[in-house]
């Protein structure tokens, strides 16, 4: 028992929780923006992969770390645009289009990686983001190492949470995005473009999702591996429902998830000899399903989610 308490008292545990949460924060915020506009984006898993590969490759080719971040976002926006064109003006099935984008983005990323690096035995490494050294804050006892010794992308994720909340609740654009996911006909009658708002939201959301992938290859690790996204995108879709499509709750959900994951990894070192490692690896997925079950009854889906809108047709 005291061992378990000790886990929570260590700064490295909280630092790990935030590190695990970071890609999920990007993913949930991206998914939330798409879904608030009324479009489910199951392309997320592939967009994560594309962001991870494109960002890493740009840095490897000499674009610099922030250049890599930009390339990852552009790659995400590109695949988002495909999903947007298929689901918004063409009104095709959001489920199938999303799966299609995931398959396309994943296989294209793998193909490009393999074509550029045909026979490398170990994946080449880049100089990844280092943790920021913020004056005063990083040096605080306990709180410094627990909260403030993270890489710049983590702070970018936190900034995006605040920015998304501000735009969504405090600006006309945000209110229009919310309205287009609830009642697109009303938005059209205001003289706003339903298609424009939805396509814009999907492209922006997808660009943010891709940053979650970029975090994996440019902060958490320093190389690209096949299968490294490993369902994180799908977990984000579950967390988005759990977060009731609210940026603040999304942050909270991702951090809870990160804390749980960091905890179980540490628990594994305590009881790992009795329980097979796979049980712990299953936990994130089972936890996501559990989170969905908990909120399923009272989930307040955006009312026009999954419903395509055609001009002049009610």
């Amino acid at each position: 028992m005291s061992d378990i308490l000790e886990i929570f008292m260590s700064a490295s545990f909280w630092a790990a929780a935030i590190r695990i949460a970071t890609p999920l924060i990007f993913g949930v915020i991206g998914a939330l923006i798409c879904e608030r506009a009324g479009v489910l984006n199951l392309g997320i898993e592939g967009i994560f992969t594309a962001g991870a590969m494109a960002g890493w490759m740009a840095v490897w080719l000499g674009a610099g770390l922030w250049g890599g971040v930009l390339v990852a976002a552009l790659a995400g926006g590109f695949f988002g645009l495909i999903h947007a064109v298929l689901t918004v003006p063409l009104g095709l099935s959001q489920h199938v289009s999303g799966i299609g984008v995931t398959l396309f983005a994943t296989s294209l990323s793998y193909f490009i990686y393999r074509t550029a690096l045909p026979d490398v035995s170990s994946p080449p490494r880049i100089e990844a983001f280092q943790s920021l050294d913020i004056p005063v804050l990083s040096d605080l006892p306990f709180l410094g190492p627990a909260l403030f010794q993270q890489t710049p992308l983590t702070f970018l994720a936190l900034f995006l949470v605040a920015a998304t909340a501000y735009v969504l609740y405090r600006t006309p654009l945000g209110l229009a995005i919310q309205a287009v996911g609830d009642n697109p006909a009303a938005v059209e009658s205001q003289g706003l473009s339903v298609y424009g708002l939805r396509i814009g939201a999907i492209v922006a959301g997808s660009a943010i999702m891709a940053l979650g992938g970029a975090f994996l290859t440019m902060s958490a690790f320093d190389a690209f591996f096949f299968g490294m996204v490993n369902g994180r995108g799908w977990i984000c879709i579950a967390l988005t429902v759990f977060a009731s499509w609210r940026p603040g709750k999304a942050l909270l959900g991702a951090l809870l998830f990160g804390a749980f994951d960091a905890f179980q990894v540490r628990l594994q070192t305590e009881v790992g000899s009795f329980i097979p490692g796979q049980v712990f690896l299953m936990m994130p997925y089972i936890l996501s399903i559990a989170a969905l079950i908990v909120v399923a009854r009272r989930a307040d889906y955006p009312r026009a989610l999954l419903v395509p809108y055609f001009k002049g047709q009610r």
Partner: protein
Amino acid sequence: MIRFEPRGPVAVSRMVGVSVTAALAALVLAAIPMLFAGLSVLEAYGLMIKGAWGSLFAFTEMLTRAAPLILTGLAAAVAFRAKLWNIGAEGQLYAGALAAVAVGTGLISGPSFVLVPAVILAGALAGGLVMLVPTLLKTRLGVDEVVTTLLLNFVILLFVQMMLEGPMQDPMGMGWPQSEPILDEAALPKLMDRMRIHWGLIIALTASLGVYFLLKRTVWGFEIRAVGENASAARHAGIPVTATFIRVGLLSGALAGLAGVGEVAGLKGYLTADLSPGFGYSGIVVAMLAGLSPIGVVFAALFIASIFVGADSMSRATGVSNYLADLIVAISLLCVLVSGLFLRFRIRLASTRPAQETAK
């Protein structure tokens, strides 16, 4: 909304046209990454056709690859017909394979005519039961099945790895994470000497006919189609919607489980955690290319299997990554989505506007 249902003989020929157009469009678009990789496109396609159809061996290899794709394609088609979004065929395939290995490596013993059906039943049952979980979560608690089926894929694969490193590991396997070999009496018989093609293909073709008959000629099939068209209207018409979802879930999972049975009891002979190169996900592409028609699934599976087997062979000859196959398959899915729409617009243009208004 898009209508998935082909209606009447004219629509069937249109569906075929859509699928063929989509497949051709995918092959044309795939030329872009092929040029990017420095391939000569026509030569590469020549190698692919030769690799999948050029010899008896190549052809049987292609058919061997098509068998699981037919089954996972049927799993997706039957579920999507009812708008039950089962994206978990990959996990259900592994569950079926695990059950087949559990039964087929000595749990029961007996002659082939007992063991083979037992292995097949166990695999189908395991796949069906795995899909029952997200189906019940959907019908009882309103949990979206897309995300649960996707997440369960990871859980099941980890469970398989756990069993293969634990209780089900082959003691003679030099420590590799693989199961004991399936007993000879439990293995699906080969169809031809010195070829890998096995009875899994016959199971798949039978399943395709069975699903066709079920959808076209039975009350359950009618209910599945009605629920897929409009679940709330079906409920008002007195169709047992919840029971229909559960039946579809069980059937869809069982079909994916059968794919696992064939791979393990017909092809490999023992289970490893890399049994399936994404058959569950490719099954979705197969189903969509087939316009969700159970007969069409057979032809779509032959196309996708040709791409996989052909690209493997082309990759060996040219050194270009065989991820090209996954890429062509993904492009096919996007193309069939778009070409389905192209078809819809043709229909609209064919009818006069007022007539269409009243038809709506």
